[in-house]
């Protein structure tokens, strides 16, 4: 495992960041901008992961995810809501059959510091409560001390815990693996962790818990998109990418979409293969959408704060 991961090509920080910045200079206007905004909205995993979360808070979030713009029913719904595992039941009731999915964090989120059986139990809990997706964290301590096989085996175990019995109402939960890029620090580590997660069976690789900065940046997105692209070239398997944390403006979100377009191609321009883990981003997207629709700059009073 170590030989393979360390044999992957290195990443030059300066070159990578320059490429990410260059992609960020694409000018997306008019029809392209409208397309991008709607796409971005449909990719949002609307998130609340606070110690102070309550059923009331989660219900409000679910309502927003189903109908983000109170004034415009044509606005697409968000892709999912993302909550702690003990809130999945509340979310399930609130979302009903709206089509908005439930993503639950698990495995001793955000630190990942707990015994494996506890992490697996946490996962099963969320799956039993009705989660469609599980956002797990990798053991960064194990990764940074070179115990790659341990990290790998944990992901495999959690993936198994995502399974539902034959004939269940819902299919197996999908697994997003959070790398916590802020703690991995180097792009080389991010590339290696991405490959490790994909080989262990991740459906999605995700940048961050949102609790550590830097979280989701364009260069990180670039490394991870390159990894999923190369993984597909090698194995034929497609893996999704979710940047999470720190994406606040529509302008930023559009840069992520441009990057997908030019690095991995249009197949990933789809909520099944790309998500934004965000909270305040949604309102900015709605404001931009409204401006494009009405021609006027909008204001925060016209959108819900949940």
């Amino acid at each position, binding site marked *: 495992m170590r030989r393979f991961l360390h044999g992957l090509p290195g990443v030059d*920080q*300066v070159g990578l960041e320059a490429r990410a910045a260059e992609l960020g200079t694409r000018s997306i206007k008019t029809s392209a901008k409208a397309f991008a905004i709607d796409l971005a909205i449909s990719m949002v995993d609307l998130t609340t992961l606070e110690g102070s979360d309550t059923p009331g808070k989660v219900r409000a979030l679910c309502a927003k995810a189903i109908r983000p713009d109170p004034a415009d029913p044509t606005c697409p719904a968000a892709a999912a809501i993302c909550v702690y595992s003990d809130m999945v039941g509340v979310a399930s009731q609130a979302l009903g059959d709206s089509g908005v999915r439930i993503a639950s964090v698990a495995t001793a989120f955000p630190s990942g510091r707990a015994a494996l059986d506890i992490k697996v139990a946490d996962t099963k809990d969320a799956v039993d409560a009705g989660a469609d997706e599980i956002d797990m964290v990798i053991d960064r301590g194990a990764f940074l001390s070179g115990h790659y096989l341990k990290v790998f085996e944990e992901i495999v175990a959690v993936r198994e815990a995502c399974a539902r019995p034959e004939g269940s109402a819902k299919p197996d939960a999908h697994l997003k693996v959070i790398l916590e890029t802020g703690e991995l620090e*180097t792009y080389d580590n991010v590339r290696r962790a991405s490959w490790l997660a994909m080989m262990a069976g991740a459906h999605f690789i995700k940048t961050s818990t949102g609790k550590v900065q830097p979280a989701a940046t364009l260069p990180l997105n670039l490394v991870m998109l390159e990894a999923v692209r190369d993984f597909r070239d090698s194995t034929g398997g497609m893996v999704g990418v979710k940047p999470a944390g720190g994406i606040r403006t529509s302008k930023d979100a559009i840069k992520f979409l441009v990057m997908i377009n030019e690095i991995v191609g249009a197949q990933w321009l789809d909520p099944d293969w790309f998500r934004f883990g965000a909270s305040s981003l949604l309102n900015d997207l709605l404001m931009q959408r409204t401006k494009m629709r009405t021609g006027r700059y909008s204001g925060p009073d016209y959108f819900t704060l949940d």
Partner: protein
Amino acid sequence: MSALGDTSTSGRIDVRKTYKLYIGGAFPRSESGRSYRVTSSKGAFLANASLASRKDARDAVIAARKAFGGWSARTAYNRGQVVYRIAELLEGRRAQFVEEVQLSEGLSKSKATDAVSVAVDRLVWYAGWADKIAQVLGTSNPIAGPYFNFSVPEPTGVVAVVAPEDSSLLGLVSVVAPAIVTGNTVVVVTSYSRPLPAITLSEVLATSDVPGGVVNLLTGSAAEIAPWLASHMDVNALDLAGVQDPELSAALEGEAAENLKRVRRPGGSDWKADPGIDAMTSFLEIKTVWHPIGI
């Protein structure tokens, strides 16, 4: 009149030196078989020197090119030591050189002594530059971005030199030393009328750890040989320091343009004066290297 080394007072028949070319560390005669009379400043016969041909020049360039890789790859410290050793050996043989310079240039003994002394000192001066010129010319350049960037001087390659006509030792040393201490190899057309100190110098070079081919000395006519060097596509630079005829100098510079040789034009003829660093910088390329700085 006596030829060199004549000790007629004792009546012994002396064994006279044959003056040959110095190419690739060896002492061949000219492949043309030609020679010419070298006389003292008063017209007395001194010796027959080889008259270098264009083929000798061609062979010398090959030798210089062959020697360049190794010589330029040596540490600057090592090159400095070698040039210093030339000074040591020249000092050790100063009496012979004083006599040759006296006879060749018609100088008084004290002036000839002075010329030899300055020549030795000049070699010492240049020897000391070997591991310092990079520090004076090199720079670390502060790029407006995350890059490490440095510029270093590198020898240009094979330098063809037309040595001064009048200053047979000091002038010669002043054009050879700066080129080789910086890592270049040279093909020199020596003074036509005063070639003997050059060939004796080549004996010094051959015994002072200078690798064969680093210095190649061709006795002969600049007007005949230099154009072949100036037009030679495997010569990187041309030092016209010793050319007195402005028409010849212009013609040579024009020929040199074909492969964009770096040309050092004729300058002043006060060889005793402080030379500055121009004789070195003329044959140094500046190479700039970039690398990103990142984790």
